[in-house]
């Protein structure tokens, strides 16, 4: 497959996947709705779907210390891109998957990417999934990203999902659902910053179906300008299990955050906890950093970037 990575794409790849060149290992680069680069390895196969847009990523059982990058770049104003990516992670595999979408919108038309990612995680497999969303461009067109993540976890599997949206996405609805079997562990860390008039909605639903299944869903967010955020997180404990969900938000300017953590315990041995805290930056934090010689604005920047680190 010919490599067609131009300067803009290169810049976007840096933003969403920390990539400075074509990644090592398996990868699939989707640009403006078409394939612009792919590599497979002996253990990781990537196959285009025939019935709908998207790919199947098939990771052989026992694959260790390999990574898959599947970045998506949309730079064509007005494009509405929809993609289905299905991951099949074999038993005992231990892999890192880096996804992400960058929209560069230079025109006045709404540009949208909706990625639907489904994970089938085999017994005892371990997955680190990193997802970054980023938007930029001078055009007046809205940049919309609606990622959906569906996770099926077989016994004793482990998944850590880091999902980040720091800048430039005008509207996002992020749906994540997970079903965990016996002994499975799911850790989700979400980081969101909205500014201007942006809107971000997050919906997590985790079903702890298996004995000793564990979920920890943690969201940290900052709402600046007149942006709005809604955080819905529901953990259902259907067995002897442990679930924790936490939403921590910093409000700035006229930001608006709604946090709706919800717990549903269907079993006497389900142990579920939720925490939510929303507020402006504490005055004493600013004061402390100012006594170190920072201006108020520098202090604010440090606190926000540390919070979302």
């Amino acid at each position, binding site marked *: 497959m010919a490599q067609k990575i131009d300067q803009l794409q290169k810049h976007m790849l840096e933003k969403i996947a920390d990539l400075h060149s074509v990644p090592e290992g398996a990868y699939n680069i989707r640009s403006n709705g078409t394939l612009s680069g792919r590599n497979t390895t002996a253990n990781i196969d990537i196959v285009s779907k025939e019935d709908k847009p998207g790919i199947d990523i098939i990771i052989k059982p026992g694959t260790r210390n390999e990574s898959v990058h599947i970045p998506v770049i949309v730079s064509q104003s007005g494009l509405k891109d929809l993609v289905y990516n299905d991951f099949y992670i074999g038993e005992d595999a231990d892999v890192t998957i880096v996804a992400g979408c960058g929209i560069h919108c230079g025109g006045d038309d709404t540009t949208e990417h909706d990625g639907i990612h489904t994970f089938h995680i085999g017994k005892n497999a371990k997955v680190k999934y990193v997802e970054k969303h980023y938007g930029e461009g001078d055009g007046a067109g809205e940049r919309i990203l609606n990622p959906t993540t569906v996770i099926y976890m077989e016994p004793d599997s482990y998944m850590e999902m880091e999902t980040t949206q720091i800048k430039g996405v005008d509207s996002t609805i992020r749906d994540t659902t997970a079903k965990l079997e016996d002994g499975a562990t799911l850790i989700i860390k979400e980081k969101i910053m909205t500014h201007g008039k942006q809107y971000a909605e997050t919906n997590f639903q985790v079903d702890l179906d298996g004995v000793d299944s564990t979920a920890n869903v943690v969201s*940290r967010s900052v709402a600046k300008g007149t942006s709005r955020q809604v955080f819905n997180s529901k953990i259902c404990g259907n067995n002897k299990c442990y679930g924790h969900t936490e939403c*921590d938000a910093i409000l700035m300017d006229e930001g608006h955050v709604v946090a709706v953590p919800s717990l549903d315990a269907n079993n006497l041995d389900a142990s579920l906890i939720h925490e939510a805290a929303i507020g402006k930056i*504490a005055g*004493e*934090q600013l*004061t*402390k*950093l*100012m*006594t*170190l*010689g*920072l*201006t*108020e604005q520098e202090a604010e920047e*440090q*606190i926000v*970037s*540390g*919070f*979302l*680190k």
Partner: protein
Amino acid sequence: MLELQNICYQVTEDSQDIDILRNVSLKIDDEFTVITGPNGGGKSTMAKIITGIVKPTSGKILLDGEDITDLSITDRARKGISFAFQQPVRFKGLTVLDLLNLAHGEKLSLDAACQYMSEVGLCARDYINREVNASLSGGELKRIEIAMVLARGTKLSIFDEPEAGIDLWSFNNLIRVFEEMRRKIEGSIVIISHQERILNIADHIVVIADGQVSEQGTREEVLPKLLTSSEACSTLMDKVV
């Protein structure tokens, strides 16, 4: 040298004027000064007035002869004033190393960060990447607070009850830290404290009670009076016995 001239600080509570500080005048030279006195006497307020966190109702603050009364917290910090809070602030996300770097003004080498941490009795390896959040105990936070002042290395360092919340073993180290600081920085160290062992290493002692300087002088002059006068400093007596 720091000089306070006729500092007054008044607050209004339930439409009543309350004097927190009344006409406090003080000179603090390049030496080790301990400010002591009963709780509620105005010591912490005075530290906050020196650092710019609280604006005095009237009076002047001079640093090396320059009037800094109207300067911001930031400007005073940049002119060389450091302040270790009595109740350290927690930060979600910022690590111990982040705070040490900010305090130092530039990125510290790992060795240097390690040095500051070990001076306050903490092993850098265990701490520098930890978030300064609720997972740290009060005593750990106090020591990190002191390490930040060490990392700044300014000409005036103010510590508000550094011993509070520190265990005995660390307390011994703390005394050594302050002695070392005096030797290295060659600036002024001001400690607000009730501890006799801290008073014992002071060059100069100032007693603040009821919003006023009730006593000041060399350690030899002031300390014997404090230890015999239960009226002047009953809180001190409670703590040192």
